[in-house]
């Protein structure tokens, strides 16, 4: 299958056009409308409409099952990218809905214009779409930077807030280092394979591996360096240092967004890079020869370190938002477990986990935000004391999200973890068992800090007995996220089948 040329490709680029168009419109709208309420609602309407268009175009592409390579091989248009387009549109829309009440309440909040946020979020979504579709090292780097740079801005969105600025600065520095290391790794890979195209890299890697009877060390080095950049994006240990500060400092809707959207995009990129460029999914990890590639070990070590660091650090956090930041690191670790398998069950498990994670993590951040708003911005555990009495439904929802994150059945998180662990057990060698046992022990540890919040909500007496007021948007959104968290835990078959059927990627040159 030949890559489409630039003109032909445009027809498949509609989802991205919708986002770019909406970005421009939002800027214009921001310029010409004076009334604050109209401005925010209009920007939101435009954004959500664009996201809806993007998602539905992706949905059509998914239904048609079209598989093309666009722009002379830079981008892929396949089920895989379309699946993630839908996910990103959903995540962005939910995050913006979160932000609505506070955007409406405070005109020019913290010196920023509310419409700016919509524009930035649209641009990040565009970047994430490109990340999931990149089939060239160049495109990978550009899209990753697009998402990163805009994320820096979003993380520092609270002007004048020290924590927010600190987080943003850390984010910039870490991001700079990580992308430098990644670029260095890419240069190694390019030097060895003399191509930027993932498909051509795959052929060259295969040839080299067969010729040398092992994965060449320079290639190994290059890929590990690239993993640094990607690991930064998914906040895998040891590239996770920025996460807690950024997540704690950023406005909560942005945190919720960062913890799900760019992370999912990072995983999409990892999946595509491993399966497309390293040929991981076609011949197992064997690369079509008898060579055992070292990637299982690398991915496994990364997963193990990430899970352990995330969970152990989360144990002692008193700030719930920070605790959730560490928990999101740990969840990146669980998902990385799937890379240590990387055949059908492994990738599907990652895909399904991303979906389940999206609901429960967004939901948890949403409740934290609602509680913090009602308590004058207090995000510590103290604010959650006695929530079971002050806001029973909200507390119930947060328990559902947290126990789902902990992997307690019958909730979505359990099913996700179940698939991950069963993929490992399915391989059945010593390393996989070690990883499976490690993952299981980690989810046990994680229960401590999730249960801590539940304990604060139900087992301790509130400082004030007055009920917590929740805006209607938040109430509806909480319900809309809690429902799938339960339903996916009881009857997940359609979603699993859908994800399984949508992970097909293009593999041509």
């Amino acid at each position, binding site marked *: 299958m030949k890559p489409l040329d630039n003109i032909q490709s445009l027809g498949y680029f509609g989802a991205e056009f919708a986002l770019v168009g909406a970005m421009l419109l939002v800027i214009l709208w921001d310029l010409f409308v004076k009334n604050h309420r109209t401005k925010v609602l209009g920007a939101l309407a435009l954004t959500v409409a664009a996201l809806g268009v993007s998602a539905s175009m992706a949905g059509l592409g998914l239904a048609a099952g079209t598989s093309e390579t666009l722009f002379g091989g830079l981008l892929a248009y396949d089920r895989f990218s379309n699946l993630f387009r839908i996910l990103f549109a959903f995540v962005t829309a939910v995050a913006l809905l979160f932000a609505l009440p506070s955007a409406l309440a405070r005109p020019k909040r913290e010196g920023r214009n509310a419409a700016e946020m919509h524009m930035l979020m649209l641009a990040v979504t565009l970047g994430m779409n490109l990340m999931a579709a990149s089939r060239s090292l160049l495109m990978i780097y550009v899209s990753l930077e697009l998402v990163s740079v805009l994320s820096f801005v979003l993380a520092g969105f609270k002007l004048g807030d020290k924590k927010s600025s600190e987080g943003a600065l850390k984010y910039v520095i870490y991001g700079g280092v990580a992308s430098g290391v990644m670029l260095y790794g890419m240069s190694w890979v390019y030097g060895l394979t003399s191509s930027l195209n993932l498909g051509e890299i795959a052929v060259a890697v295969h040839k080299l591996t067969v010729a040398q009877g092992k994965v060449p060390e320079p290639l190994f080095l290059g890929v590990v360096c690239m993993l640094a950049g990607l690991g930064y994006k998914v906040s895998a240990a040891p590239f996770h240092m920025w996460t807690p500060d950024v997540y704690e400092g950023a406005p909560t809707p942005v945190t919720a967004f960062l913890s799900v959207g760019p992370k999912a995009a990072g995983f999409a990129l990892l999946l595509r890079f491993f399966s497309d460029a390293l040929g991981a999914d076609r011949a197992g990890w064997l690369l079509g020869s008898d060579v055992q590639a070292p990637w299982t070990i690398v991915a496994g070590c990364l997963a193990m370190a990430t899970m352990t660091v995330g969970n152990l650090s989360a144990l002692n956090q008193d700030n719930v938002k920070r605790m959730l930041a560490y928990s999101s690191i740990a969840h990146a670790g669980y998902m990385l477990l799937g890379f240590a398998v990387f055949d059908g069950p492994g990738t599907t498990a990652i895909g399904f986990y991303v979906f389940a994670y999206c609901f429960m993590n967004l939901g948890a951040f949403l409740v934290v935000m609602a509680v913090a708003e009602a308590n004058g911005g207090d995000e510590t555990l103290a604010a959650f004391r006695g929530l*079971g009495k002050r806001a029973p439904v909200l507390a119930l929802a947060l328990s559902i999200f947290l126990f789902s994150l902990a992997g307690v*059945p019958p909730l979505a998180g359990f099913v996700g973890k179940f698939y991950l662990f069963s993929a490992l057990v399915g391989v059945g060698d010593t390393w996989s068992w070690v990883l*499976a046992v490690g993952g299981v022990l980690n989810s046990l540890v994680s229960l401590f800090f999730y249960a801590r919040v539940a304990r604060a909500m139900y087992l301790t007496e509130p400082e004030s007995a007055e009920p917590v007021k929740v805006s209607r948007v938040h109430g509806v959104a909480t319900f809309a996220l809690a429902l799938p968290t339960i339903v996916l835990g009881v009857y997940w078959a359609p979603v699993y089948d859908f994800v399984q059927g949508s992970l097909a990627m293009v593999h041509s040159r």
Partner: protein
Amino acid sequence: MFQRTVHMARTFARYRLFVALLALAATALGAGSARAAGAEGRGRIELGPTTGGRGSIDLVTEGEGYQGTFEVRNVGDGPLTVTRIATRTSAEDPRMPPGVGLKEHPIPFVLEPGETTEVTVRWTPGAARARELYGHVLVESDAVREDGTPRLQPAAVGLRAERPLGLGPFDWIGRHILSIMTFLPLVGVIAIFIAHLLGYKKDKYLRLMTVVLMGLEVLLAAWLYYKFDSRMLRGDGNDGFQFVDRVVWVRSLNVEYFVGVDGISITMVLLTALISFVGAIASYSVEKQLKGYFAMYNLLVVGMMGTFVALDLLLFFVFWEVMLLPMYFLIGIWGGPRRQYAAIKFFVYTLAGSVFMLLGFIFFYLNSDPTYMVDGQSVTRIFAIPELQRVAWLSKGLLILGMSAVKVVWVWLFVAFAIKIPMFPFHTWLPDAHVEAPTAISVILAGVLLKMGTYGILRMNFALLPEATRWAAPAMAIFGVINIIYGAFCAMAQKDLKKLVAYSSVSHMGFTLLALGALTPQGIEACLVQMFNHGLITGMLFTLVGVVYDRVHTRDLDKFGGLAQEMPLYSAFVGFAFMASLGLPGLSGFWGEAMTFIGSFPRYRLLVVIAATGVIVTAAYHLWALQRMFLGKFREEWRTNKYLEPHGGRFPEINGREMFSLAPLAILVLVLGFWPRPLLRLIDQGSLQVHRMIDTGSVAPVAALPAGREPTVLAATGDDTDGEAR
């Protein structure tokens, strides 16, 4: 080669028109040959009801029996030769009740693409024991799979038939009684949630609703007891399970919603219903946050009931965990002063066990043999326990981290269940949880939750990994004896009455472990008897502890004395319960202990002698506690106690509600003490069957073993534990 190609290309370029014509011809030919290839295609088979689609078929009443028809369809692009149609059962491994047959059908026959033929199945139950039929008809053919590769196993279609229960329009209640019993409390949970959303304030009606729901559970359980066929064996079909509900739950993971009862679980279902009812009445002493309490209570009952009836590993795991969270909140919110510590300890201990249990379940799933789901879909992996019992795990020779997989998985499962029992050294959560939990929750905890441990060992460890069970039996027995002695001595040292009862549970549950370790039919039966009776007796004991605690808010034995004059009726009840607990002949507690000793003496003489000394200690601490509390001189300072002020300084006698919650248990303890037949009747066959499984490694109730299932012994371990048993 390369030059030749270039030359050819040049030639073609010269004769462009000719080439174009050639290409056209080739296309036409290609299309033609594609069609020709289609004629040589292979047939693909699809089975399903005559109404179209796939899935199992329901047999309906037809004369003396039940009859149903399914279609064999050829959905491929070539002819399909059907070589054999047969029911999936054999004399060695009877999977379905006798009397299932196929109407005569010419065999072999050929189906052209798109053609269908109908096959009729008939079930003439006659004298068959089974009330329902779950089975498969296999159709062997030369069909290929969708991708053109040969089928691994013949196509199958699921069969289902149920004989009426004679309840008329309420027949469906009887057919789905286990599902109804499991999910009935969920109605309560939803009702309470709606009541909360609507701002309903009269919480005491929600309490009444819970009692009514639990009363309904008891009625349903009574009916179940009445209808349960205790003589049904594995060979009678449906793997010996009754009141089966079985449908596909999640197809992509081959999970089934599969519930049923047999001789092992029936007593536990009855016990759960009864104890839940008693607990609901005992919950009247709870005063704060009633909505939350009763929502959690109902959810807890769903989890407990589900755990005992689930026959699919994943379903079992889900129910197991569903029970966990409500328990955490019930102890943590409505418990005593150290409730938070106790709640988290309970939670973490149980969860630590269950995560490894989950790994074990995944192991079973991934290494199971190809079989069929209930509707006939062929699968390579399954969670259904009866199917997994047919897998010869040991002969697979699997390893986990270099160790024999069956042993590793056995230990994982055992630890998960041992935590629940609780077995020494995993028992430390129990005294904490009991002391802090409200009365009703202590009753549930001791009455039902501890039994999940022993039930799990019987259902999973014994039935799925018989060889490893034989390997580990002595360890089980030794831990059992440690439990008995250690628990008894700890109980003796307690000043807190509730802690004393909690440690007596540790001691009494030790008997079940010793009995299991014996691997004799009497031992297994003793375990089941002890489980049931311990549930009744500790239920009583904790309720009685709650009675005195409600009155004076202390349980310190040394502060009491001479209560017999103050509360004669209460004293009588406590005396009765203590006598039952220490195993006085004539009360039901006696049977479990006596049968344990009878069952395990042939195998572990020394251990039984040691365990028997535990009985003496048991008697000692019971009597000593009785003496400290009820005999001697009444302390006059109680007269001025602030809790007794409203009652004029006198201990109020046990009241009607409390007696009402104790009465069913007390009556059962007395009746079963003199006449244990109604209980043993239920258990006899179940324990024999379990014994047969572990004794020979065979699953079939008849002498012959199914193919591939040799009575292997774990010889590689080098120890001779097995020889001792014979």
